[in-house]
């Protein structure tokens, strides 16, 4: 699969490494090239500097050929905007969005955007740990 990841933070960088090791074709975008230090030395994919909320940059990252687009930056709104560009402008078959704010995540999920709120997921996980 061709996967385009926006945001090379801890999670984005790690996800890129995992998918790359699985043999997928990975491109990762970040506005700061310093973020690419998080990629493992074995990473064979492409790392590109650029802002994923700009359609031109996404085009340069070959979004048109991507099977999956994942938005993993720190900003909920940036992620939401980039995902909607991927979904509605470039018709990427699968788009997954990280949205920290649970209410915003619910809203965009109801609008047809596949999204995950780490806040909700982790809170529930920790509750499980604590009360079994």
């Amino acid at each position, binding site marked *: 699969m061709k996967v385009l990841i926006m945001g090379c933070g801890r999670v984005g960088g790690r996800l890129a490494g995992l998918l790359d090791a699985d043999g997928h074709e990975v491109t990762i975008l970040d506005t700061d090239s310093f973020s690419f230090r998080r990629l493992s030395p074995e990473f064979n994919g492409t790392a590109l500097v650029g802002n994923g*909320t700009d*359609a031109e940059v996404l085009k340069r990252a070959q979004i048109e050929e991507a099977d999956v687009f994942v938005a993993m930056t720190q900003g*909920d*709104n940036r992620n*939401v905007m980039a995902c909607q560009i991927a979904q509605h*402008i470039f018709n990427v078959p699968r788009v997954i969005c990280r949205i920290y704010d649970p*209410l*915003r995540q619910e*809203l965009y999920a*109801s609008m047809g955007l596949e999204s995950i709120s780490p806040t909700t997921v982790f809170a529930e996980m920790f509750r499980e740990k604590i009360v079994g």
Partner: protein
Amino acid sequence: MYIIVVGGGRVGYYLTKALLDEGHEVLLVEKNATICDTIIDEMGSICINGDGCEAVTLEEIGTGRADMLVAVTGDDEDNLVACQVAKYKFNVPRTISRVRNPRNETLFKKLGVDVAVSSTNIILEHIEEEVPTHPLTHLLAIEDSGHEIVEVKIPPEAATIGKSVRELSLPPATKLALVIRKKGRYRVPTLNTIIKAEDRIIAITTPESEEDLRYTLRGT
């Protein structure tokens, strides 16, 4: 009207002031507490400190009964989300967003924002109008149809002068609507109309065809 303004920067500040002067009920949402306090000191308690993209904040300020939400922060993504939350969660009838990147104007409209205003595009349009040598001026975008009305000026040295409209191969989805001649005389062009120097031709076209249209009419 009850109007919510998101973003208390320079645009938001003057916009709020103008809307208040017009007698509207206005509430400004600003993230920065210091800016918020300054505005309250000056204009009274019309500013709330909070994030205008957050449903909780918008709930608190009664967005459900708002007639309009205007998002004018400096970040396009924040403006987009504020408008979408207002529109899809609170059913605000009209949402207006400022866009910094001119390309986002069409994108935002596609994503449900009623009006997207790009200051860059507005300034650019004015420059086009003011600079007489500009070969193609955008006069109007026809909403939803993807068409636009443009004006092409024929320079004295254009290769097309003396040719009839029939001889020109116009790009797809393009129609010549009006030819304006000296002294403000105008006519609706037919296939036999001859292109003359200094003609101003009003045409309906699409953004994709405008370069071709300019070339067809001016020869450059």
